[in-house]
């Protein structure tokens, strides 16, 4: 990571994290025939009180990353350090203490709450697991307080989850995550299952809680528009790796990795006047490369061709090359590292951030593909 000006000591440091799921064949005599490389060498830092957005398409490993961060999965290799201590190798007892400080909010508010428990039991469960967090007589009051904090009527404690709508359930899940006063909340697509009109409510709630409690967020999503709204820094993930990372403005206004550019340009913008955007073959797009790569270049909308390759069969070299319009021979042979690309090493300004591309170049992409007035 070549970011020189990091304001504070990171609270979570992820180093060279790998999670491979073995693919086996045979029932009695299992032999490994391959591996799904869900997370394949990830480095991340999170500082206290900041929001790190992680964006990527399905299958890029972002949900596995979330589970690794909260220790629901053990990594194949690599380290996750919380305040300098590697939490992937802790004893069960030590892990319990760490868990108080790193909590998770899930995507699906319908499966993340136990249907047989009342709201009061769900939000109060953290106190039962960690009795030291709240004296017994105080728990009911704390639960009501938590419900109030997330904007639910505390009178609902005796109700069951199925009596609530999706947005309300997500608030219950957030209250549960908040109960132990964690320092970090990993939010795995927390609003993508919600109705449009409710998404904004939950995003605002998360932002307010961050201010009130000084929370650090790892906000995982596939939707760049919300990530960019909520994040201080953004990491773009593709097939188990981070391909570009930097501050929000660096990533969104000066993306240098073609995948980030494509993601940005795919964000649908509610503005029909952005229509009529065309292929704009004016840059980069060297025909015949990369076997049917999509179009690109210029300021037009980038529509990638094809789908994400399977994480069980990752392309050699740069993993994005099969969908990249810039791909050359070098991309197949040599894997680009996540670092400030050469052209930007000696410049100052927002283009100077980590990007794993051999041919990184700044391209301003306007979501939806309309062309912004030239700089």
């Amino acid at each position, binding site marked *: 990571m070549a970011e020189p000006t990091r304001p504070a000591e990171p609270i979570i440091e992820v180093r060279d994290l790998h999670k491979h799921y073995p693919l086996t064949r045979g029932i009695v005599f299992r032999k490994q025939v391959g591996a799904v490389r869900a997370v394949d060498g990830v480095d991340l830092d999170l500082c206290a009180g900041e929001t790190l957005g992680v964006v990527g398409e399905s299958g890029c490993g972002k949900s596995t990353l979330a589970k690794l961060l909260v220790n629901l999965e053990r990594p194949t290799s690599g380290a996750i350090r919380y305040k300098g201590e590697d939490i992937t190798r802790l004893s069960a007892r030590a892990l319990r203490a760490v868990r108080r400080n790193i909590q*998770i909010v899930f995507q699906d508010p319908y*499966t993340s709450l*136990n249907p*047989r428990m009342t709201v009061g039991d769900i939000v109060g469960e953290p106190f039962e697991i960690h009795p030291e967090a709240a004296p017994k007589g105080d728990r009911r009051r704390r639960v009501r307080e938590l419900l109030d904090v997330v*904007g639910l009527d505390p009178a609902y404690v005796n109700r069951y989850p199925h009596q609530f709508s999706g947005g*309300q359930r997500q608030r219950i899940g957030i209250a549960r995550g908040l109960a132990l006063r964690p320092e970090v909340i990993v939010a795995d697509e927390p609003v993508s299952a919600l109705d449009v009109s409710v998404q904004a409510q939950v995003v605002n709630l998360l932002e307010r809680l961050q201010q009130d409690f000084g929370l650090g967020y790892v906000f995982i999503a596939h939707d760049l528009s919300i990530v960019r709204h909520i994040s201080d820094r953004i990491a773009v993930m593709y097939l188990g790796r981070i391909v570009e990372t930097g501050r929000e403005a660096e990533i969104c206004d000066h993306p240098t990795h073609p995948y980030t550019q494509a993601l940005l340009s795919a964000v649908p913008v509610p503005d029909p006047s952005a*229509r009529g955007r065309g292929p704009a073959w004016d840059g980069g797009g060297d025909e015949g490369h990369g076997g049917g790569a999509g179009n690109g270049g210029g300021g037009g909308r980038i529509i990638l061709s094809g789908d994400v390759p399977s994480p069980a069969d990752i392309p050699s070299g740069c993993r994005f090359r099969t969908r990249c319009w810039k791909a050359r021979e070098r991309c197949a042979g040599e894997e680009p590292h996540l670092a400030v690309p050469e052209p930007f090493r000696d410049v100052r300004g927002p283009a100077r951030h980590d990007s794993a591309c051999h041919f990184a170049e700044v391209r301003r992409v306007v979501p939806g*593909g309309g*062309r912004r007035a030239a700089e």
Partner: protein
Amino acid sequence: MPEAPYGDGPAIAPAGGGGAMDLATAEGGTLEQAPAPAGPSGPGPAGRPRSLWSDAWHDLRRNPVFVVAALVILFLFAISVWPQLIAPGNPLDCDLARAQQGSRAGHPFGFDGQGCDVYTRTVHGARTSVTVGVCATLGVALLGSALGGFAGFLGGVPDALLSRLTDVFFAIPVVLGGLVLLSVVTSDTVWPVIGFMLLLGWPQVSRIARGSVIAAKQNDYVQAARALGASPARLLLKHVMPNAVAPVIVVATIALGTYVSLEATLSYLGVGLRPPTVSWGIDISAASPYIRNAPHMLLWPAGALAVTVLAFIMLGDAVRDALDPKLR
């Protein structure tokens, strides 16, 4: 193609006037303050908790199939505990002189081959059938769900071992197994029969329990509890099991009916219960040679058996429908 020109028009002005943004300034505006939660279940009476179980009960009470089945079963339980209530006679009080006679006053079902009163024997036989059915079901449900539940929860080697073991048991033909195993037992009680049912019945429940535990285990709420640091015991007892028992209950209810009829089958084959015991199976077995000239001897115990089995299967069906959230 005469396409519209590419989007190199002027810069895109975000749609919507900025004025409306001000509407959101009040903090309260971001909170959901609807007094009653929305959702398919709608608002119940204020504050009253409604669980899936109470929802299921609400459904069941309105289901005529359930009501009829439950009444039949209640009646059966009552006469197994207090057969004297409706059949004060002694089922072993037989008189060969009355053998195979038809119905007459005081003996509405007539007499069997030994001259015993069919009505009294049918009523008293309920106790054996219900005992066998209930004990075998309880045992099978407890044993099967404990084994299957743990295997599903732990996964890995214990799970693989148990799965293979259940496969072995599934391969044993029930009736043949009964003939072989029970023929070596000499006991006048119902326990060998129940033991046999336990032996062959648990794999079925264990397989169901394993499947539903594995399904429940993958729910995010189990993951959420793990992320909070919950112990495996807590995960299993508080989060997994309560959400995995419904299919087991359903299978067990239906299995109860089959155990009652299996007891009759085994008794008919001569390896189940033996004569001093009063049971429908024994009576059916004893009556079958005379089906032509004295069908009433077979009709009543067989009819009681059929009604009982049907009642339990109907009950199981109704419970399954009521517990299945997809049918809501």
